[in-house]
């Protein structure tokens, strides 16, 4: 007992600063890693297996007489693309890189007289003779990314994003007039709508991720995107509350509307990606049916934005801004999707959309609470009916569109 006290007193005055104490383990780890690397992992020896060669095809473009694949080395070892076989015949090609290290990407431009509407199997042969197959189910020329094309994608994004959301916001005068009880049902409806979108985006993200590079995270990217978006929006929400004071903020609901708009915007970014990439591979007919489907589908999103501000509507300019925040990302998404679609990025963005929606649902829950003799409750017959109606509306309108 005595000795221990003495020791502590001795070290007391000469104590190291806290930052150094924090740094020492880091330096030790760094030097251990360096030594391990220099000695080439003493005692472990080489890996017993042969090279693991994996390539993910991230993007396919078809131009007259040429098939262009963007590939990424998805495995741990170097990959050398030695030959390319298209539909059981060797084909001439050029590669932007001779050999691909881990996570490296390259463009393979394959000279091939492909014809519109045919199916192609592109087989990449590596230097060890291993093969990686890539299917092109229907060959359609990739649209040239010129000004006209970006204009078309912008128009498409406007039709399916900005326009329907803004139209949906025209429900504002209606929601202002209705009884608070009905407003709560409407908010429950909004939660139902958003809940459906979150599920939809998650499933879509998982689907898309399966087609991309697994080394970059694959399906995990959906959840990474979701968690990041959720946390960021939570932080933004907390910051808004600090600025305005909780009571004021809750009363005018404007920050909730902003958060809803951001979440819906993220979701529409993913939707735009899907539309743009589907259009680029010729899997989408730009018909009136599609636009009508999306209009109905996304109009309800406008309702979700205005419902929280029913009691104290903001200025027209502010409403327009909310509409743009929620709808315009569809244009951006369509551009990215059609010109630089990347499964990993799409999965991340779709996940972010879902995470944002979950955060917004959490924001909206207090607005549907009703007082009872014993306290408050969010789930009661009217609110549940509203939520289910929201689900039903989006389920039904989603049947109109398939991307």
């Amino acid at each position, binding site marked *: 007992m005595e000795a221990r006290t003495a020791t502590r007193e001795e070290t007391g005055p000469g104590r190291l600063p806290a930052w150094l104490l924090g740094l020492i383990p880091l330096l030790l780890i760094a030097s251990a890693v360096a030594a391990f690397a220099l000695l080439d992992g003493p005692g472990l020896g080489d890996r017993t297996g*042969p090279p693991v060669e994996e390539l993910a095809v991230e993007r396919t473009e078809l131009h007259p007489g040429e098939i262009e694949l963007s590939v990424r080395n998805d495995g741990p070892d170097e990959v050398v693309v030695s030959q390319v076989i298209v539909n059981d015949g*060797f084909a001439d090609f050029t590669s932007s890189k001779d050999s691909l290290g881990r996570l490296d990407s390259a463009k393979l431009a394959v000279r091939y007289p492909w014809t519109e509407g045919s199916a192609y199997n592109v087989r990449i*042969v590596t230097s060890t003779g291993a093969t990686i197959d890539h299917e092109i189910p229907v060959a359609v020329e990739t649209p040239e990314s010129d000004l006209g094309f970006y204009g078309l994608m912008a128009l498409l994004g406007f039709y399916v994003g900005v326009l329907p959301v803004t139209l949906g916001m025209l429900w504002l005068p209606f929601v202002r007039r209705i009884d608070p009880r009905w407003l709560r049902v409407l908010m429950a409806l909004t939660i139902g709508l958003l809940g459906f979108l979150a599920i939809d985006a998650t499933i879509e993200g998982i689907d898309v991720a399966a087609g991309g590079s697994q080394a970059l995270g694959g399906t995990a990217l959906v959840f990474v995107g979701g968690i990041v978006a959720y946390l960021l929006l939570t932080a933004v929400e907390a910051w808004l509350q600090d600025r305005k004071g909780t009571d004021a903020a809750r009363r005018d609901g404007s920050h909730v509307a902003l958060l809803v708009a951001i979440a819906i915007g993220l979701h529409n970014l993913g939707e735009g990606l899907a539309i743009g990439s589907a259009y680029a591979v010729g899997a989408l007919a730009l018909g009136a049916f599609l636009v009508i489907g999306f209009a109905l589908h996304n109009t309800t999103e406008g309702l979700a934005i205005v419902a929280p501000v029913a009691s104290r509507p903001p200025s027209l300019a502010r409403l327009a801004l909310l509409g743009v925040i929620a709808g315009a990302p569809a244009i951006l998404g369509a551009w990215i999707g059609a010109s630089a679609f990347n499964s990993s990025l799409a999965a991340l963005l779709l996940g972010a959309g879902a995470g944002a929606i979950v955060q917004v649902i959490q924001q909206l829950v207090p607005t549907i609470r009703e007082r009872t003799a014993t306290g408050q409750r969010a789930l009661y017959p009217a609110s549940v009916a509203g939520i289910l109606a929201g689900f039903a509306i989006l389920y039904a309108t989603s049947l109109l569109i398939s991307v």
Partner: protein
Amino acid sequence: MTRLSRRRMLASLAPALGAGAVAKLGGVNFAPPASAQDAHEHTTTAPRPPVHGHGNTPDHPGFQTGGSVDHGANGFHPTELLRDFDHGKTRRLASGRVLREWELVANDGDIEVAPGVKFPAWTYNGRIPGPALRAREGERLRIRFGNGSAHPHTIHFHGIHPAEMDGLPGVGLGIVEPGKAVTYEFDADPFGLHLYHCHVNPLAEHIARGMYGAFIVDPKEGRPEADEQVMVMNGFDTNFDLENEVYAVNTVGFAYMNDPIRVRQNELVRIYLVNVLEFDQINSFHVHANFFDYFPTGTSLEPVEFTDTIMQCQGQRGILELRFPHKGKFMFHAHQSEFAQLGWMGLFEVG
């Protein structure tokens, strides 16, 4: 957007496993016989003119433009294999008969079957196909076979001979384990075009890896003077999915597209054509703008057909005789378009 399936993944691992086995084999005692060494030195000291690859585009079929196979590293050149007949060493026995002797050695090593694509092969005398062994009807043949490979092998000859000389596991000389040697001895009978190959299980793998060659027994009276060529139709399953990725005659895909076979106008050309192709049911040979006499198995001196296309199943073979009346380039290829596009395609250049 496809990635490697599990099966393809496993398949992609296999070649390197083979390569590992080769690396471990450093100290095997079997030196390749003199003839194989000579061939090797020849290809390395007198390099061919640069080979220009051509893309498989509407204008010209082939591999990636600019790529070429390193024939020096392979140790053999398809153009040299074409007219390379191994007559072995002969001496006269007391009885007056001719004894003809060869030495064959099994080895493992990488062979470049398409530009940049290495195949972990098993070979006779370091080449695919193995040497085209050539004897005359009635001679006594003696083949010393040493196994320098990491795997058990045999040589199974087509022909008429005693059971113990058949190169079959469990019969007679049986399996030749790594590091061991045996001597096959039998009569050259009957005359014709035959083949030899390894007969160890799994049979398909031992053949697909490259263990085969042509075995020619000339008739006593010989055949008319001709520009003689041997073509062994084969293929390579580089990803081990039991289907071939590369098809060829004499191993290297499109070899005779890049380096056409030069023949003289109106000269008799005799092609010893053997099909050893594994995994596919049949193979075929078609020559453009010409017809040939066909002698199936070469066991008759009378042709049975005058045609421009024949087909052979695995192990089937026959002799083709033709003259080119016109100058210029004439294509020959498997008349299975898939095989042709995957490498089994070449040119005669008549001058």
